[in-house]
């Protein structure tokens, strides 16, 4: 028993695990949708499994256990580890500076740190290698992909910083902790979900990266699969390599699952969080500015400068404005449609992953990650084969291409949606229900507005990804449909750098608004 004034809440609230089953039973439609999404995402994997069974054990042994595969494994593994480490350090460091320190121009830095997302990795790669042909090494690959991918960590971590209750940090300061100790013991544990989500995104993206690494002549599984497919149309060989890639991805997913733990983080404090008082940097202001400046310079100014240079020198090549406009229109329409479809598909899964956390929902969520970890070329190959066999009338049509985009980019939408759901407590749902609001009404008036920043971020990420998607588009686009990425690719692979540059510039310009949107939504925060 407690005296008056002591809060009496913990004992009245029962562990959430016991509510999971009921929550699942209460939302059969959401569950059914999430299952359908997971099934779609697993379609390419099913194709690989079916193909493997078809090849047989001796075929598998012959195709997998060879020095070439070991070499690819080594290349891929060290690149993923190095990139995740660099992205995590850069992403968390930059997010802390922008969200919690007194560094001048925080809003501008925030936009500049998200901006590299507007430069596709293969364009970034093109920019660097066309200036410095000696970059076709491990270090070169690490540099280029890190500069392209660190915003994937920066964005969710910055959003999570914003969701943290400053009162916790103040309390920790009051307990005598230094800024560094507060970061390690208070902020970092709460950022864990965002950091791991971002790192997983970087790893998955890297495992499927084709254009950038092909251009840097750094062989990984994905480039090897593409080469094999293009060179020999050797289906089983490519598919077996993809099988190994899927196993790597599975290991990563399990690792993240173990590290993330079972706890959900929702702010337990009262109504609304107070604004943050930033940590004064004092003498460290200049080094902090320099560090941010170097990062932005390398990630943004170098590729943009290089593109500018090639635009200038390539002006002798006549520019076909009509072709450029048509290609742009096609890309825009495809990316917009894919963003809407994919984000809609991400909602049920992201929702259940937080609100009904348990074995089933984790499995569903992981299924989409697993599905999207299959390289674009294998997704494309699977969809081509399946559409020819099952639904010939869909073969080489836009819906199949959109399905491929959805399978490939679902995790981006789900990670951001899930982070947003974690910030919107179930209490709001209960209150809205008590005010007579029906389930669809609650979705429209409470849940979606609360999730809007997360959904917006997810849609923008998908849009960005599709505008610059290369591999699946190369294989799946209906005959005659050319996107900016495929047009750029065919020009740059014949070393017509000047002709390739305009397409790259348009891709960057198209991605820019989505990038600004992304940074602005994240700035608004998820709860205020």
């Amino acid at each position: 028993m407690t005296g008056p004034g002591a809060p009496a809440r913990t004992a009245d609230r029962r562990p959430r695990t016991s509510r999971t089953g009921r929550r699942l039973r209460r939302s059969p439609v959401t569950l059914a949708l999430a299952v359908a999404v997971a099934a779609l995402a697993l379609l390419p994997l099913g194709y690989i499994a079916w193909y493997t069974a078809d090849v047989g054990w001796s075929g598998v042994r012959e195709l997998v256990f060879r020095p070439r595969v070991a070499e690819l494994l080594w290349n891929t593994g060290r690149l993923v580890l190095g990139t995740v480490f660099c992205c995590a350090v850069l992403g968390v460091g930059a997010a802390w500076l922008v969200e919690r320190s007194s560094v001048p121009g925080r809003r501008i830095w925030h936009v500049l740190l998200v901006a590299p997302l507007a430069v596709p990795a293969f364009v970034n790669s093109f920019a660097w290698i066309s200036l410095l042909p000696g970059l076709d090494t491990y270090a070169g690959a690490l540099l280029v992909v890190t500069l392209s991918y660190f915003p994937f960590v920066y964005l969710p971590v910055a959003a999570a910083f914003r969701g943290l209750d400053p009162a916790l940090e103040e309390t920790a300061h009051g307990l005598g902790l230094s800024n560094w100790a507060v970061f390690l013991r208070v902020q970092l544990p709460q950022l864990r979900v965002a950091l791991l989500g971002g790192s997983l995104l970087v790893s998955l993206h890297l495992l499927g990266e084709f254009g950038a690494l092909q251009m840097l002549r750094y062989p990984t599984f994905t480039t090897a699969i593409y080469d094999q497919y293009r060179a020999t149309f050797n289906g089983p060989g490519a598919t077996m390599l993809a099988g190994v890639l899927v196993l790597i991805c599975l290991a990563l997913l399990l690792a993240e699952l173990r590290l993330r733990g079972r706890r959900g983080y929702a702010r337990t404090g009262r109504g609304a969080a107070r604004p943050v008082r930033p940590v004064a940097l004092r003498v460290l202001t200049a080094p902090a500015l320099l560090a941010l400046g170097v990062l932005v310079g390398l990630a943004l100014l170098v590729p943009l400068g290089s593109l500018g240079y090639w635009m200038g020198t390539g002006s002798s090549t006549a520019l076909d404005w009509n072709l450029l406009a048509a290609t742009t229109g096609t890309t825009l329409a495809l990316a917009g449609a894919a963003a809407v479809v994919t984000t809609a598909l991400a909602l049920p899964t992201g929702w259940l992953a937080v609100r009904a956390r348990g074995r089933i929902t984790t499995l569903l969520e992981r299924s989409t990650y697993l599905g999207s970890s299959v390289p674009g070329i294998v997704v494309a190959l699977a969809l081509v084969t399946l559409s020819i066999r099952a639904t010939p009338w869909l073969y080489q049509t836009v819906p199949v291409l959109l399905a491929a985009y959805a399978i490939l980019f679902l995790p981006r939408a789900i990670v951001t949606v899930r982070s947003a759901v974690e910030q919107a407590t179930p209490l709001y749902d209960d209150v809205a229900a008590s005010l007579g609001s029906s389930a669809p009404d609650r979705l429209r008036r409470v849940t979606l507005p609360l999730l809007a920043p997360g959904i917006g971020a997810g849609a923008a990420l998908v849009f960005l990804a599709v505008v610059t998607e290369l591999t699946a588009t190369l294989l799946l686009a209906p005959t005659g449909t050319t996107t900016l990425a495929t047009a750029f690719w065919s020009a740059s692979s014949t070393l017509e750098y000047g002709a390739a540059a305009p397409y790259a510039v348009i891709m960057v310009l198209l991605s820019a608004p989505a990038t600004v949107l992304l940074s602005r939504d994240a700035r608004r925060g998820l709860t205020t």
Partner: protein
Amino acid sequence: MSSLTVKDLTKSFATTPVLTGVDLHVPSGSFTALLGPSGCGKTTLLRLIAGFDDPDSGTVALGDRVVAGAGRGVAARRRGIGFVPQEGGLFPHLSVAGNISFGLPRRQRRDGGRVRDLLALVGLDADLADRSPHQLSGGQQQRVALARALAPEPSLVLLDEPFSSLDAALREETRLAVSRALAATGATAVLVTHDQAEALSMADQVAVLRGGRLVQLTDPRTLYRRPGDLDVATFVGEAVVLDADLRDGRAHCVLGALPYEQVSAEAAPEGRARILLRPEQLRLSAPDTGTTAARVRSVDFYGHDSRVWLDLPGGGTVSARLEGADLPGAGDEVSISVRGTALAFPQAQESVLPEGPTEVRTVFAGEPLRAPAPLG
């Protein structure tokens, strides 16, 4: 508005029983407080009434309409029950006006007059309508949450410890505003609280919940004066509990032979018993023969009244609540007389009160109140 009837309600989470057969009747238009210590299941009961959770067995009825149990489960949104959560739970993405008008039919949502009326009802300024929830103080958030709950004219309003996160001054002010608003609308209301002063001062009737069970349901005065057992007695207010011998129609204890009433008619008329006095029943006067003498150990001065700690000659300490400015000082010799009657409880009754050598105890909110160390 309508009455609320809860019958034999049980609820377990996993294997932990939380509610074990709760019966409760809240008459239409009344204000009932659910009082109980942490973990007694009061928030769970509230959630079952609201429809956020389903009971394992038993029924919940609003008026004649069964909304939960007996094979029925009316969704929370169709129950017409307003809910004010612990911390207000205002939608962070909506303004104050947006929050208040949330439950109104679409056409009325844009009606600024309606929002103004509701703000006035809870004693808030109309200027607040355009503010965001995070720009409000805790008390204002609570009042807006009440206005939001009252807007659709619910048949019942549930308040889940709405004042526990507020500081003392704000709590009192917010309580008054909430009481006034509820009285003005004539809504039936159920308030969950662990604060007995809040329950006694605000409610028409108080339901005491303990260990997942309703132990007493009555009006605040009866609850305070004739609690059903010693645990309830000590939970709802400061108490002086003494061992006594009942004979010849008097309770003989260290404070003399006192008139008493039995807590239940079945109790043995004579023999050992424990008696309950409230500290305000103790009167002090200058030392005098024929009354119990005691020595003042210390005085807690509260302004409106004071608590005086008294060492009894036979050992043990009791407290007296005194009004006025005429207070004894520490070390003074005083006489104790008792006003009114004592309430006698059977000796054998199980109790949370710790057994100990002292036969005299002052207890507050279920916890033995420790007397300050003697001076010198």
